[in-house]
C-alpha cells in the first residue's frame, strides 16, 4: 500500500504519532461492568420543551405519544390503545392505556393528556398547531379532539414528537417545561444540559422490561470526535456518523453497523419565480447536470443513495418504481439550455441577452455532507458554463430567503416523515403558496387538488393513484431537484446486540437491545 511506504518516510513527530494511530490494532474491548449503555449522538439538548427538544425524549423512550408508528410508517398504538373518528370526521376519540403511570408515580389521566396536548397545540411551528382543532377535552379514560373541518392524518400528527405527553408535574404554573416526567419504559435519572442524560428503567412500566436498565447519553458535536469514540470502544451505540468514518470502521471490522434508509431526501430547492430558474427546461438541465451516482459513491460512500426520484424506497407508498429515473446527461442538459436561449459567452459562462447564468446556492453545515455536495454541484455546473456561487451559512437563511424572495437555490435534507404520514408534510411543502422547505414560486393546481382530496380522507381508494400523480408531477416539473437519499447509520459495539434503526427516527428502540452473551 502506498501509505505504508509513506510511513517509512514519515519524519515529523506528528506524522509518526498519527501513523502509530493508523497502524493501531483498534479498540481494546473493555470487559468491565457493562452498565450503563453508552450512547453518543450529535444532538445537544438545549430545551426540555417537546416542541423544541427535537424528539429527544421519544427517541430515548422516556416520553410517549398517543400514537406510535412501526418502521413501515403504519400507525400503532402508543399511549392510546385505540382511536376512532365520528362519521363526519370532526370528532376523534383516543382511549388511553389502562394502568399507565407517569414516572412520578401518578396515573396517566385523560385530563393530564388533554392539558399536555393543549400546551403543544399552542406552540408555533408544530404540526399540531396547523391542524384545525377546535378543542381537546377529557372524556373518562379517553381524550376527545374536536375539529373545525375533517383532517384525515390527525392520528399521524399525534405521533409527532412535539405531541409527547408529559405529566402535570413537568410543567410550571405558566406551562413551561421544568423537568421531563414521561410514561415510557425509561425514566430520567440525571439530566445535565446540554450534553448529558442518564436514564434508568422505569419500574412501573407495563410492557416488556428492557434488558438494559441503565443508559447514558452524551452529545458530542464533532463527527470526528464521535467516530473516534466509536472506534476506541468508548461508546456502545454511536449515531450521526460521517460516511468516511463509517467506511473506515466498517473496514476495521471491530464494530457492527446498523443502517436504515430514511424517508429523507437531500434536494435542491429552486426559486421557480426566478427569471432564469423559472424556465422548466433550465430546471431539467440542472437536474441532468448532476452526476448523482458519482456524488453518492465518492461523497456519501453509498452508491445506492443516488436519488432517481424525490421519494426514497423507504417511503414504499410514495416511491414509484415505474417512473422515469432522473439521470446524469450533460449533453441533454446542454441541449435544453441551448433551447432555452443560453449560449456560452467569451469566458465560457452561459449568456442570454447579455445576462450571465450566475446563481447562488445557499446551504448550511449542520449536516456535514451538505457543504461537500454543494461544492461538487458547483464543479459540475461549471462544466456546463453555469457560475454557481456557494454560500454556506445558517439553516435559517433558507426559510428567510424564501420569505423575502432572495433565495435562488437552496440545498438541504428534507424529512418526509416528520409525521408518519408523508401527506401532511407534502401538503404543506407543495401547497399553492409553496413553503419554506418546499416549492417556491411554483404551484400546480392538479397537484394541489390531488393532495387536498387525499387530506380530507374522502377518497381512500384513489389514494394510490393520487400518490402516483404527485410523484409524476414533481418529477417532470422539478420544483425541487432531488440529489440523494439518506441512509441513517449507527455504529454498535460488539458488546450489544439487537439494534434496529427506525426509519422515522422516532425512537432509538434501546429497549430491544441486549448485552452480548
Amino acid at each position: 500500500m502506498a501509505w505504508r511506504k509513506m510511513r517509512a518516510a514519515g519524519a515529523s513527530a506528528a506524522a509518526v504519532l498519527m501513523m502509530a494511530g493508523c497502524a493501531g490494532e483498534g479498540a481494546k474491548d473493555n470487559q468491565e461492568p457493562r452498565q450503563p449503555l453508552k450512547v453518543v449522538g450529535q444532538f445537544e439538548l438545549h430545551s426540555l420543551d417537546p416542541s423544541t427538544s427535537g424528539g429527544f425524549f421519544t427517541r430515548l423512550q422516556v416520553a410517549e405519544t398517543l400514537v406510535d408508528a412501526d418502521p413501515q410508517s403504519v400507525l400503532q398504538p402508543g399511549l392510546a390503545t385505540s382511536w376512532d373518528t365520528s362519521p363526519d370526521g370532526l370528532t376523534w376519540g383516543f382511549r388511553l392505556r389502562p394502568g399507565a403511570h407517569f414516572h412520578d408515580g401518578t396515573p396517566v389521566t385523560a385530563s393530564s393528556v388533554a392539558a399536555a396536548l393543549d400546551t403543544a397545540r399552542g406552540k408555533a411551528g408544530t404540526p399540531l398547531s396547523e391542524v384545525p382543532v377546535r378543542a381537546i377535552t377529557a372524556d373518562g379514560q379517553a381524550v376527545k379532539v374536536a375539529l373545525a373541518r375533517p383532517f384525515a392524518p390527525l392520528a399521524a400528527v399525534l405521533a409527532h414528537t412535539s405531541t409527547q405527553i408529559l405529566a402535570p408535574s413537568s410543567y410550571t404554573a405558566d406551562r413551561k417545561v421544568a423537568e421531563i416526567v414521561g410514561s415510557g419504559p425509561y425514566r430520567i435519572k440525571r439530566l445535565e444540559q446540554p450534553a448529558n442524560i442518564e436514564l434508568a428503567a422505569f419500574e412501573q412500566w407495563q410492557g416488556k422490561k428492557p434488558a438494559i436498565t441503565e443508559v447514558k447519553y452524551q452529545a458530542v458535536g464533532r463527527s470526528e470526535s464521535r467516530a473516534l469514540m466509536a472506534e476506541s470502544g468508548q461508546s456502545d451505540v454511536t449515531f450521526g456518523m460521517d460516511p468516511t468514518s463509517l467506511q473506515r470502521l466498517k473496514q476495521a471490522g471491530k464494530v457492527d453497523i446498523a443502517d436504515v434508509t430514511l424517508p429523507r431526501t437531500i434536494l435542491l430547492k429552486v426559486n421557480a419565480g426566478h427569471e432564469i430558474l423559472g424556465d422548466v427546461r433550465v430546471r431539467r438541465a440542472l437536474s441532468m447536470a448532476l452526476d448523482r451516482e458519482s456524488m453518492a459513491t465518492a461523497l456519501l460512500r453509498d452508491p445506492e443513495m443516488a436519488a432517481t426520484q424525490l421519494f426514497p424506497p423507504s417511503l414504499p407508498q410514495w416511491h414509484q418504481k415505474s417512473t422515469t429515473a432522473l439521470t446524469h446527461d450533460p449533453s441533454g442538459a446542454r441541449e435544453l439550455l441551448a433551447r432555452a436561449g443560453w449560449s456560452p459567452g467569451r469566458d465560457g459562462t452561459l449568456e442570454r441577452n447579455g445576462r450571465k447564468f450566475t446563481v447562488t446556492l445557499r446551504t448550511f453545515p449542520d449536516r456535514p455532507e451538505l457543504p461537500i455536495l454543494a461544492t461538487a454541484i458547483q464543479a459540475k455546473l461549471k462544466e456546463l458554463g453555469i457560475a454557481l456561487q456557494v454560500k454556506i451559512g445558517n439553516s435559517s437563511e433558507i426559510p428567510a430567503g424564501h420569505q423575502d424572495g432572495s433565495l435562488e437555490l437552496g440545498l438541504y435534507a428534507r424529512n418526509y416523515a416528520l409525521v408518519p404520514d408523508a401527506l401532511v408534510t407534502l401538503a404543506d411543502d407543495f401547497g399553492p403558496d409553496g413553503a419554506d422547505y418546499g416549492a417556491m414560486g411554483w404551484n400546480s393546481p392538479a397537484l394541489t387538488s390531488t393532495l387536498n382530496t387525499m387530506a380530507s380522507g374522502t377518497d381512500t381508494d384513489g389514494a394510490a393513484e393520487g400518490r402516483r400523480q404527485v410523484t409524476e408531477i414533481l418529477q417532470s416539473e422539478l420544483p425541487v431537484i432531488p440529489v440523494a437519499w439518506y441512509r441513517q447509520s449507527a455504529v454498535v459495539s460488539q458488546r450489544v446486540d439487537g439494534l434496529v434503526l427506525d426509519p422515522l427516527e422516532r425512537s432509538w428502540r434501546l429497549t430491544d437491545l441486549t448485552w452480548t452473551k
Partner: protein
Amino acid sequence: MNASTTTRRAIAAPAARVLRQRAVQAVGLVLLVSTACFAIVQSLPGDIAYRIAAGRYGYDQVTAASADTVRAELGLDRPAWQQLLDWLGDLVSLDLGTSLVTGADVAGELGLYFSSSLQLAAAALVLALAVGATGGALAAARPGGALDRITTFWVSGARALPPFLLGLVLILVFSVHLGVLPAAGHGEASNFVLPAATLAVGLSGLFARVTRDAVAQIRQSEYVRFAATKGLGGRLVFLRHVLRNTGVTLIAYVGVQTLILIEGVVVVESLFAWPGLGHALVHAIFWRDIPMIQATAVALALLVVVLNTVVDLGSLAIDPRPRRREVVL
C-alpha cells in the same frame, strides 16, 4: 502626615492599587465587550429571529411562523439601543437575562460552562506547571546538557503543533490505539486526562523555558552567591532563594499565559466535546443568542481579569518590590 503612616501606605498601596486598577479594567471591559458583541451581532447578516428559531426548533422545523413567534416573544422589533440598554440595566442588577434559544436562565447555564472550563484550565495549568517547572529547573542545573537541549526542542516542537492537531494525535494514540483513555466526553475523572494534556503540552514547554532561563539567571545573581558564602548548603540555597525568586518570574508568566490557555480551551472543548465557555460561545454565535454571547464573552474576559488579578496579588505576596520604580531621586 507623619513618616510612619506614609510608609504604611506606601507598602499596603500596591495591593489596593492592583485591585483598583483591575476593577476599573473589569468594568470598562464589561461595557466594551457587551456593547461590541451587541453591535456586531446586530450588524450580522441574516434575520436574527430566523437564526434563533433555527437554534430553538432545529433546522428541519425552522419556518417563517416560528421566526415570527420568536420575534414577537423576544421583542426583537424594538429599537436596538433599547435592547442594549435593557441588557446593561439587567447586568447592573447581576441579571444576565435568559437565553433566546433555550429560554433558560443565562446565569445558570453559564455557571455550568464556566465551572467546567475553569476545571479544565486549572487541570491543564497544574499539569503544565508541574511538568514544565520541574523540567526547566532540572535543565538549568546543567546548561547546555542533554536535558537542556531536550527542553529546547520540546519548546519549539510543542509550539509548532497546533492544539487541535495535538488533541487528535493524542486521541489516536491513547484512545484508539492503546485504548486506555476515553476519546471525548465529560463527567468522569478520566475524561480530564487528554484535553488537559493537550493544553498542557504547549504550555509546559513554555514554562520549562521560562523556568530554565530564570533559574539559570538567578543562580548567577549576587544574592544567591552571598547566600552560599553565608554557609547555606546548596540544597537550602536552591530551596530558599532560587526557587522563590523563580516563582516571581514564573507567576508573572503564568498571568500572560492564561490568555493562551483560554484560547486553547475553546479549541480543545470543540474537539473533546467539553461543555465549556468556548463551546457555548461558538454555539451562541452560530444561533445569534445575544444574551448568551454577551454573557459568555463577558465571562471569558472577566476570567482573564480575575486570573491576572490573582497573579498580580500572588507575585506581590512573593515579591514585595514596587512594580515601577521612580526614576528620579
